[in-house]
């Protein structure tokens, strides 16, 4: 087992474990912190695939900005009073059923895939490096890139309009 395999399995275990802990944590603040750990593990996976830019942007945007805002809102809520919502058996059953259906579909879909043809290649390729990515974004995919930035701008304007009301 090479060092890449060891890193892969460590990161994967960390990601799955943190994701599970995020779901089962009773306190939402702990959930957010576990989710941050998931983002770190995923960034590690990006690094293994030689996508340094993606890895660091994942940390800056998700772990560094979006999760801070999540934490910000959660900390302002008084969690003591209503951390435990009243458990309704019917809702619990419906949740398990819906989640189980999703799992079934995902497993069925993954079983049908041809896994050999889509093996991830580690440590090769330079598409994830910032120079290559920038060239492709600003040459081949310039129009979609700009259109998506307008989408973000409109979302921002919408947020300001709602905030001003």
């Amino acid at each position, binding site marked *: 087992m090479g060092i890449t395999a060891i890193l892969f399995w460590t990161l994967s275990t960390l990601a799955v474990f943190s994701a599970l802990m995020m779901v089962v944590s009773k306190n939402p603040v702990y959930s957010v912190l576990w989710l941050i750990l998931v983002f770190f593990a995923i960034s590690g996976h990006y690094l293994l695939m030689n996508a340094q830019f993606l890895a*660091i942007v994942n*940390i800056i945007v998700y772990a*560094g*900005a979006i999760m*801070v805002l999540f*934490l*910000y809102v959660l900390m302002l809520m008084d969690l003591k009073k209503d951390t435990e919502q009243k458990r309704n058996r019917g809702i619990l059953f419906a949740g398990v059923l819906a989640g189980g259906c999703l799992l079934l579909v995902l497993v069925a879909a993954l079983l049908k895939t041809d896994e050999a043809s889509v093996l991830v290649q580690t440590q090769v390729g330079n598409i994830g490096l910032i*120079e290559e990515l920038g060239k492709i974004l600003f040459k081949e995919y310039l129009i979609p890139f700009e259109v998506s930035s307008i989408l973000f701008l409109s979302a921002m304007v919408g947020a300001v309009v709602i905030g001003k009301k």
Partner: protein
Amino acid sequence: MILEAIDSWIFLEKTILILTIVSITFFIAMYSTWAERKVAAVMQDRRGPNRAGPFGLFQPLADGLKLFMKEEIIPTVSSKYLFVMAPALAIITALMTSAVIPWGNTIHLFGRDISLQITDINIGILYIFGVVSLGVYGIMIGGWASNNKFSLLSAIRGASQMISYELAMGLSLIALLMMTGSLRLSVIVTQQSEGLFNWNILYQPLGFLLFFICALAECNRTPFDLPEAENELNFGYHQEYSSMKLGFYLFAEYINMFISGVVMATLFFGGYDIPFVNESLWGNEWWVALLGFGILLTKALFFVFVFMWIRWTIPRFRYDQLMNLGWKGLIPLALINMILTAAGMLFFGK
């Protein structure tokens, strides 16, 4: 990440380098606490610490001993794991930035070329931003885990302040990046080393000013030290902390100051470049690299001094003034700076 190319000696080399850099950082942070009190004393016409040793030079050691020996109190109502983890996070994120900084030129020793940079990744500046954006967690988690209203308010203040000023900080650097064309810090320093005096501050004075103001805000220094506004919040986010955990928070602030001084020196003031001489003519000697390292430290410590100077000169902002300055002052200015730089580069055909 080509792991085959790494030979075994590099582990030893990097370990020594990391330990050296971390110890130097700790040493400088330690004596920054002494310097801060001396600067304050001079500006307020007092003597400052002068009992422990000559000129009070042993004062930081006495302080450290005191912090280590004090009783450690963990509030029963706090979230214990997070309460203990938060100061560690604060100091780890403060130290992590030093990994991408080129501390000096390459040294040729024992038949090997030893780079005085821990890692030369091609996303150096983005890495710094990543670590800076994580720096807020130490404050936020600590403030929340203390389960104290003042700590929580202070943590929320710190988080919103840091997020607001990160934006302006990033925008102020885009103009610089357009000129250098690389995110690699070693390349940025090498470009500035060419010629006698070719520092980025000559081309990006406004960018530097914006970056400096944002650095003050990111380090929670006066006039932006609202998370520690003692007249409103008692002691701030570390109110419930005692012993060395409090020491870690205070220490992290001084490490942040030093590291941001180093980053400013690297990006705008030529890094380890010695001004007005062309040191590449002196050859690849080890003492040239060490001299460059000393020059970088001098530049960084000058910025640390300016930080202290500002602290004892300017009063604190009000919270709405802080937000107005960040969102309505610095961000538009950074955007204008970006457009001006782009226009200049087109006009001069650089």
